[in-house]
């Protein structure tokens, strides 16, 4: 049994279909990446998993439990943390407070939360200096670190990451992806949505490529990277041909 099993997942924003019949599986301990252009349905997939969007059809199973349509507060208690696009750090709270709130999905004592927060500061030493700085004063890279640390505070079995590289300088992007690789080493499974295919495939065990709400091709990073159609879709913006969809 896979940790996460998605079958026939469809979702829509009002009358606009965003996902049509997606099948996807993530095994425990993997980093799986979802690739695709804007509007391909990558973020929508994550929103359906974490409960922000109720799917119109299909099934989502996490460790065997059906979670489609559950409220986000329930989903995160089951062990899925979603670090959404745009970081969404609470602007009026300090870095430490943001991180501590990440443990809201479970019952823990004040001392245990503080210990976990210290662990996060050890994992993200650059944040120590900013522990008492309010969220809105941070740079994009610092906010991404806070968002990651806050997500990890939930002690998730599955971490959903949406566009962690968006708007960051190349050096910071490398730093973020080194941390993502380390997160997997601690036993956390990662489902990663990225527009930066090169760096995502560099860290992932497997990848799925979506186009307008459908799965077009899935496979190992090398296979995807060497797939002419995938490269064309990314580098030239050309649509994938019908033949390659089989």
């Amino acid at each position: 049994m896979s940790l996460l099993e998605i079958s026939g997942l469809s979702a829509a924003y009002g009358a606009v279909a965003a996902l049509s019949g997606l099948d996807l599986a993530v095994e425990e301990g993997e980093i799986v990446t979802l690739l695709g252009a804007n509007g391909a349905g990558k973020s929508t997939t994550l929103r359906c998993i974490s409960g922000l969007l109720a799917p119109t059809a299909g099934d989502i199973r996490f460790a065997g439990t059906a979670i489609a349509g559950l409220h986000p507060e329930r989903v995160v208690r089951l062990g899925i943390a979603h670090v959404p696009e745009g970081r969404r750090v609470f602007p009026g709270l300090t870095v430490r407070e943001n991180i501590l709130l990440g443990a809201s999905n479970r019952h823990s004592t004040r001392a245990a939360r503080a210990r976990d927060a210290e662990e996060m500061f050890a994992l993200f030493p650059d944040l120590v200096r900013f522990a008492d700085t309010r969220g809105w004063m941070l740079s994009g890279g610092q906010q991404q670190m806070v968002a990651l640390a806050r997500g990890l505070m939930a002690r998730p079995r599955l971490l959903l990451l949406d566009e962690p590289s968006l708007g960051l300088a190349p050096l910071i992007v490398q730093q973020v992806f080194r941390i993502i690789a380390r997160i997997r080493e601690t036993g956390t499974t990662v489902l990663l949505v990225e527009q930066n295919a090169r760096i995502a495939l560099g860290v992932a065990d497997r990848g799925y490529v979506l186009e307008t709400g459908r799965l077009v091709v899935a496979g190992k990073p090398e296979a995807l990277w060497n797939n002419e159609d995938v490269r064309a879709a990314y580098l030239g913006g050309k649509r994938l041909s019908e033949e390659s969809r089989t």
Partner: protein
Amino acid sequence: MTIILQLLFTGIGIGAVYALVALGFVLIYRATNVVNFAQGQFAMLGGYCMVITTVDLGLPYWLGVVISLVVMALFGALFNLGVYYPLRHRSFLPVVISTIGASILITNLVLALYGPEPTTLPGMTDYPGISFGAVFLDAQYLVIIATTLALVILQYFFFEHTMVGKKMQAVSQDKEMASLLGINVTGMIMLTFTYSAVLGGIAGILVAPILFVSVGLGAQIALKAFAASIIGGFGDVPGAIVGGLLIGVAETLGAFYISVPYKDAFAFILLFAFLLIRPQGIFGEKIAQKA
């Protein structure tokens, strides 16, 4: 000089009441992004709860206060369930109209049950007050100032030093993200309404012995408290307190030095002045949003 001190004392006393109601506006606004136009009615209900328990039923004053606060807490929860919750996914306007509708309903229910005649509530203590030279500190005003100060300190501690307070702040800043972290957003909003109703009730209980308890009490206080929260910088907690005190002092000084009949106008003259010169309010735009 003595006159000025006397007027400042009175102004701060009445201003503290505006500040409490303004705090209710701000807390609900921050939690739901909606202005609750029934906030003043909460104060009126608090005043009537006191009249019913202590005057009509003859209960001891302290018991009246306890019962009134419990009733207000329940009322706040009920208000959330009936007025806000069904419309929580709608835009700003339907919810605002819903709160205006609720305030009209509350006013007229009180009118139907209690009639239009204003009633009076005795002060918390028979003790008249303290004299400092020529300045007389009235006991009820002292009670108002002390209670407000205690509430502000308590609230600061709650929001800055407890996890529930942090969760409430998180909900007010980004509800979707808060729910992704497992914070009970509905529960936090329920708590906000409950607390705001209690705050409004306390304001009503405190001000009832000074003003008459009437159906018009709510609108009278709410308009000035609303002006106070704009002057302070809408959505800002210290702003609501400073704005309330400013309005209290301004109308007291204005009434004494300029004109008593125009007492109620000074709050709005101050509001106009702020809207012209500093529309974001005293503490406005302190928290900038960063992409």
